[in-house]
């Protein structure tokens, strides 16, 4: 039975997000009545590839590594209060995530329905044929780590219609995690483009958690955020007509015209066509209305028919990356750091691509070609605290380790008074995006009945 409004909160905006963010949101959702849902967005572009690598090593892994820590403290309250949990924390292995959640519920003596959504993984079944046909830059097959299509809200809403208390997904478009409970509870049609666009942009404002409540925002003196370290995560109140308000539970942070405008445009390209599997949203007519008390209404969002294709992120083996740093201070610090970098350049394996930064002189802007040094001409002689950073990429672990060894050797062979060397290396996962016909992904819902109470 459709209702007039629902509330959707955010419990995480990325895999490394604050682990205790969900509790204040849940406390707020438990008051006030009406249907409620809590979304967890924990799946970045390459997070999924890392998950697939873990799954290869152990078929029972490959979901969000912090899943138990995220859900264990909140499952009892959410199930008791009827707050539906939706998360892409299934990552590379949603069925295993479902089993883990069932295990958590068994330990806590809880009952509920866990919906596991699959079908985004195109490296299974005949997906590879589709990729070959639609991804011109597809790398050699044996380099492929993952290829996942972004699913939309429909299978998630369907799972809720079948009584799911927890919806576990792999790759879905981030805003779809919020749109699904809106479609389900408000009875929206899947071609009601204006409402789907409004729900999608509400989800877009929620999907990065605190980024709409004062995170990634503070600029002391110009944009101050009260009790920033206690910023609470956002809650959207969505009405059946598609109008919505972004707010937050009591606590630190803020929601105002500025935070909402910044996040509305975050990772948006053409504002007339923000594309998801569900809709093409048009925010060119969007208007922000401050209601006071950390509540903001967003009007004027329109929608158009959804794209005929689905975006696929393909992850493949990109060799290895290494980073090393060493510090120099006092007079001539930058010159000694540069000499150290030159030594590494001459001695490191030729197969490596190298990049040099002088932290304390110029590092963020320093491009590889040297143009930034010419254009911005920082005063190197004035620098008294300089840290050479060498980054390198190569085809294999051995060549990168060999390059890092040249940095370590600077302790005894390098310029005068170099200290504080730190070295690290990691596998590099490269990604490309392509677009496949919608029919290439066949979403499936598997329902687990957890009966432990």
């Amino acid at each position, binding site marked *: 039975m459709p209702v007039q409004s629902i509330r959707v909160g955010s419990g995480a905006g990325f895999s490394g997000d604050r682990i205790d963010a969900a509790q204040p949101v849940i406390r707020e959702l438990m008051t006030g009545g009406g249907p409620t849902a809590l979304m967890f967005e924990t799946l970045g*572009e*390459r997070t999924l590839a890392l998950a697939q690598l873990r799954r290869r090593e152990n078929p029972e892994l490959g979901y969000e590594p912090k899943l138990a820590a995220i859900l264990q403290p909140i499952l009892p309250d959410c199930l008791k209060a009827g707050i539906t949990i939706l998360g892409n924390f299934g990552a590379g292995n949603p069925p295993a995530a479902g089993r883990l959640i069932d295990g958590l519920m068994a330990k806590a003596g809880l009952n509920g329905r866990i919906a596991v959504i699959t079908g985004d993984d195109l490296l299974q079944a005949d997906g590879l044929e589709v990729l070959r046909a639609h991804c011109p830059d597809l790398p050699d097959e044996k380099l492929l780590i993952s290829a996942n299509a972004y699913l939309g809200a429909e299978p998630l809403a369907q799972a809720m219609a079948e009584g799911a208390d927890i919806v576990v997904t792999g790759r879905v478009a981030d805003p779809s995690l919020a749109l699904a409970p809106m479609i389900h509870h408000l009875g929206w049609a899947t071609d009601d483009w204006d409402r789907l666009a409004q729900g999608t942009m509400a989800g877009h404002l929620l999907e990065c958690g605190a980024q709409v409540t004062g995170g*990634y*925002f503070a*600029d002391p003196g*110009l*944009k101050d955020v009260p009790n920033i370290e206690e910023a609470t995560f956002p809650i959207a109140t969505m009405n059946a007509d598609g109008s919505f308000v972004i707010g937050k539970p009591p606590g630190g942070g803020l929601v105002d015209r*500025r935070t909402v*405008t*910044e*996040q*509305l*445009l*975050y*990772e*948006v*390209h*053409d*504002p*007339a066509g923000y594309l998801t599997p569900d809709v093409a949203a048009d*925010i*060119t*007519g*969007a*208007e*922000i209305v401050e209601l006071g008390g950390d509540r903001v209404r967003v009007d*004027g969002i329109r929608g158009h028919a959804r794209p005929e294709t689905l975006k696929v992120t393909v*992850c493949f083996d*990109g060799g290895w*990356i290494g980073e090393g740093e060493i510090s120099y201070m006092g007079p001539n610090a930058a010159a000694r750091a540069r000499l150290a970098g030159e030594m590494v350049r001459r001695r490191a394996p030729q197969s490596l*691509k*190298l*990049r040099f*930064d002088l*932290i304390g002189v110029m*590092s*963020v*802007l320093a*491009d*590889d*070609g040297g*143009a*930034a040094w010419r*254009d*911005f001409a920082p005063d190197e002689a004035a620098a008294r605290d300089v840290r050479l*950073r060498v*980054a*390198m*990429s190569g085809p294999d672990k051995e060549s990168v380790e060999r390059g890092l060894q040249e940095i370590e050797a600077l302790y005894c062979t390098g310029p005068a008074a170099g200290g504080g060397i730190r070295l690290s290396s990691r596998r*590099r*996962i*490269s*990604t490309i*995006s392509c677009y496949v016909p919608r029919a290439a992904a066949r979403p499936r819902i598997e329902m687990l009945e957890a009966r432990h109470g």
Partner: protein
Amino acid sequence: MAETLLHRIAHARAGDKGNRLNISLIAYDPALYETLREQVTVEAVTAHFRHRTPSAVARHELPKLHAMNFVLDGVLDGGVTQALNLDAHGKCLSFHLLDLKVTVPEALTHLIR
């Protein structure tokens, strides 16, 4: 007229997708939107980011939000999974945009923060 940094009249946020960076630029006061529109042009932004050799720069105008959205292609050293940059996402680059100098008309100088 007064010369100031963009930082004193507008705020900005950067986001990345692949090798493409977007930076929103939002006037603190709606009255300053026209100043942004006139001075923070595609040409000015392309020049300001020239060391990153963008392959394309687009500007989308959102007057109702007194904001603009810049989309810079090819400036992230291949994107977060490829880059050897410290800031592979390009998250810091919104404040590089805010380092641009602008001239504020006399009638609006009281709006400089």
